[in-house]
């Protein structure tokens, strides 16, 4: 299975205003892997995701996604392979009704009307929101908006799912539903979040970045329980593990 590999080679990204957001990142993500990306604010998480999804083109280094090298020419192809769930749902949902929003991607893929309808239905069913199909997005709760956002991306049938802070602004119940939903997906997943409990629940592997560099990369269970490492990176132990970690070896 080599077709959905994500490979970054010495990735650099420089914003036009001179900010060096990414400073040489190299890693490889295999088919079906779920990877959490953690790091303090402003350390380059979002920039990294925007690069991975073809919205920004690296200033140096290379990104290969499923044997396609990211360049200006191939970015549209990459965008099709990569489903990106944005941090703010109001950016993600721009059509007047939920149905039209979910249909937007499939229509652009050039599918027939019946196929589009099928895709919309199955994507909305997947997130349990088919009953909301005629609602305008401004009449949904944040949790519903998040679920619909995911449906809009799933309707594109992406190979790789990328999410930026998927649990922000969600109440505990919606957050739990989201986690269960994510666990059910068999796609390659890349999730950037400060919510380390979510990463621990959803991801097998975790990468910590600081100042645009990878400082740790390994199994989530190991990295997210390494207290000194986390504290060095302005993070702390996942809440679910804090209690047991305090007790330590006793």
């Amino acid at each position, binding site marked *: 299975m080599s077709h959905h590999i994500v490979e970054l080679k010495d990735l650099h990204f420089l914003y036009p205003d001179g900010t060096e957001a990414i400073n040489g990142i190299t890693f490889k993500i295999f088919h079906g892997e779920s990877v959490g990306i953690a790091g303090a604010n402003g350390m380059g998480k979002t920039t990294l995701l925007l690069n991975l999804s073809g919205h920004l083109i690296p200033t140096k280094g290379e990104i290969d996604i499923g044997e396609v090298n990211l360049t200006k020419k191939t970015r*549209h192809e990459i965008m099709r392979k990569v489903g*990106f769930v944005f941090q703010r749902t109001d950016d993600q949902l*721009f059509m007047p009704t939920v149905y039209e929003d979910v249909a937007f*991607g499939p229509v652009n893929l050039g599918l027939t009307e019946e196929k589009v309808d099928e895709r919309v239905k199955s994507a909305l069913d997947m997130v349990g929101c088919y009953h909301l199909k005629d609602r*305008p997005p401004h009449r949904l709760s944040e949790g519903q908006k998040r679920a619909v956002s995911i449906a809009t991306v799933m309707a*594109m049938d992406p190979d790789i799912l990328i999410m930026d802070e998927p649990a922000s602004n969600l109440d505990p119940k919606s957050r739990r539903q989201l986690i269960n939903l994510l666990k059910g997906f068999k796609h390659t997943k890349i999730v950037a979040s400060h919510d380390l409990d979510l990463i621990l629940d959803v991801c097998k592997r975790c990468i910590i970045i600081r100042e645009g560099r990878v400082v740790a990369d390994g199994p989530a269970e190991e990295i997210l329980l390494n207290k000194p490492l986390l504290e060095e990176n302005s993070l702390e132990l996942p809440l679910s593990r804090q209690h047991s970690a305090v007790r330590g070896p006793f």
Partner: protein
Amino acid sequence: MTFDLEFFNIGYLDTLSYRNSFVHRLDPRIKIIVSFIFVLFVVSFPKYEISSLIPFFFYPVFLLTAGNIPLKAIAKKVFFISPFAVFIGIFNPLIDTGTLYTVFGVPVSGGWLSFLSILIKYVLTVSTALLLIAVTSFPGICEALERLKLPKVFVIQLLFLYRYLFVLLEESLRMMRARDARSFGNRGKEIKTFVRLISVLLIRSIERAEMIYRAMLSRGFRGEIRVLRRHRINVYDILFLMISVTVFYLFRSFHLVNLLGETFSRVLR
């Protein structure tokens, strides 16, 4: 805090449009066409006409009752924008002083009549436009406009306007609240701070527009947005169109109020 209240007020018309009634179910295209014809008929009357305009209230009243729309919601909005109409006609009584009628011994000048006529036409057309929105969801209107061959660019602009109006309003509402929380009395509410708020809002909207564009690209956007077609014209729509246009035509060509008056006076005699 009036701004907060106004904000919720804007959403109200939108809430009404999701009700379910006979007029809500009509095809938006038909409603737009009928309302347009209605407006044409109303403005086609000569400037001193008053009594022949009265029967035309039938149409807005019909939309109001059949659509189960509260009168207050519409009346308030009509009242708030009335200064525009008032200022168009306010000088008519001063310019046009020739006496046209004498009512119970009081001479009525042509200026007053034309002023009143302008106001009636204003109430008729504006309340119909508002009611059209209240009984048709905004996406429905956009769909209709697109299918009536309005250039797609405009339709999509309208759709985005509708989608982000609420988002932007909420954003400005939050900013205003933050300002009010830290300004006391009139300090901090000067025009200077207001200008800054507006500029921050502009920058935020530009940033947001960029993100939305990215979200669109992510889903294969290539410069083409298809508007969903949900409605189909059926027998009721055709009937509604034919009946209402016939009724408007009758109102226009027969002086209904005069006829009624004559019949009444004959009966009384």
